[in-house]
C-alpha cells in the first residue's frame, strides 16, 4: 500500500465533495480496514475590518511542497499502523465554503487513525511551503497566516 515515490498532491481549484465520496468508495474493496478518518479544510468567510473574504488563492513552492508531503507521508507510515493515506491540497482560487485540503487515513483500528490524522494535518500546516492569498469582495487582499 505504501508508495515510495514523490507524488503530486496538488489539485487545481477546490476539492469537490464528489471526489471525496469517490475516494471513500474506492476503499470498500480493502476489507482489512476497520476505521477511516478524514480531515477537510474549508475556506471561511472571515470578516476583516468590515470586509469579507470571498476566496483564497493558493500558491506553493510546488517541488519543495511535494517533497515535504512525501516526507510527512513516510514518517506517518513509520509512526502509525495505517493501511493507506491520501493527501490533496488545492492550488489557485478556492471560494469560501469550498474545500482546499483533504487528508484521508485508514487503518484496521480506530486508535491509529485519530493520532495519525492530527499528526499529518499539524505537519502540513508547519512544514509545507503553501501560501494563501485571502481575496476580499472589493478585490483587495491580504496574506493568510496560520494560527
Amino acid at each position, binding site marked *: 500500500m505504501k508508495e515510495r515515490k514523490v507524488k503530486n498532491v496538488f489539485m487545481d481549484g477546490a476539492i469537490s465533495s464528489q471526489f471525496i465520496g469517490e475516494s471513500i468508495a474506492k476503499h470498500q474493496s480493502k476489507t482489512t480496514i476497520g476505521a477511516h478518518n478524514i480531515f477537510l*479544510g474549508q475556506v471561511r468567510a472571515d470578516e476583516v475590518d468590515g470586509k469579507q473574504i470571498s476566496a483564497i488563492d*493558493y*500558491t*506553493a*513552492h510546488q*517541488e*519543495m*511542497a511535494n*517533497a*515535504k508531503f512525501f516526507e510527512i507521508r513516510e514518517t506517518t507510515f513509520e509512526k502509525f499502523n495505517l493501511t493507506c493515506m491520501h493527501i490533496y*491540497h488545492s492550488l489557485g482560487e478556492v471560494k469560501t465554503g469550498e474545500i*482546499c*485540503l483533504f487528508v484521508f487515513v485508514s487503518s484496521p483500528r480506530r486508535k491509529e487513525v485519530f493520532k495519525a490524522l492530527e499528526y499529518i*494535518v499539524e505537519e*502540513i*500546516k*508547519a*512544514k*509545507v*511551503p*503553501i*501560501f*494563501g*492569498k485571502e481575496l476580499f469582495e472589493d478585490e483587495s487582499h491580504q*496574506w*493568510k*497566516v*496560520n494560527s
Partner: protein
Amino acid sequence: MNLKIKYFGVLAEITNCSEETIAYTKGSVSDVLMLLFEKYPTLKETDFQVAQDLEIVSKDTLLLESEIALLPPFSGG
C-alpha cells in the same frame, strides 16, 4: 557565478518578481540577503525563511546550489 532566486507569496509581491538571477561571489545565505535587502528594503521587515535544495537552511549556511527560494510563513490547509 549566477544565483537564481525564487520569491513566493507576499515576497513576490514585495519584489514584484517571482524569479530572478543575480551575480554573486561565493558566500553564505546572509551575504546574498544583504544584497537583496539593499535592492528591496521592505524585505528586511518581512518574516521569511530561505530554502536551498528543497530544505530550509539557516542564514549562515554556505550557498552550494545555484538556486535558493525565499519563503514567507506557510499558510496551507
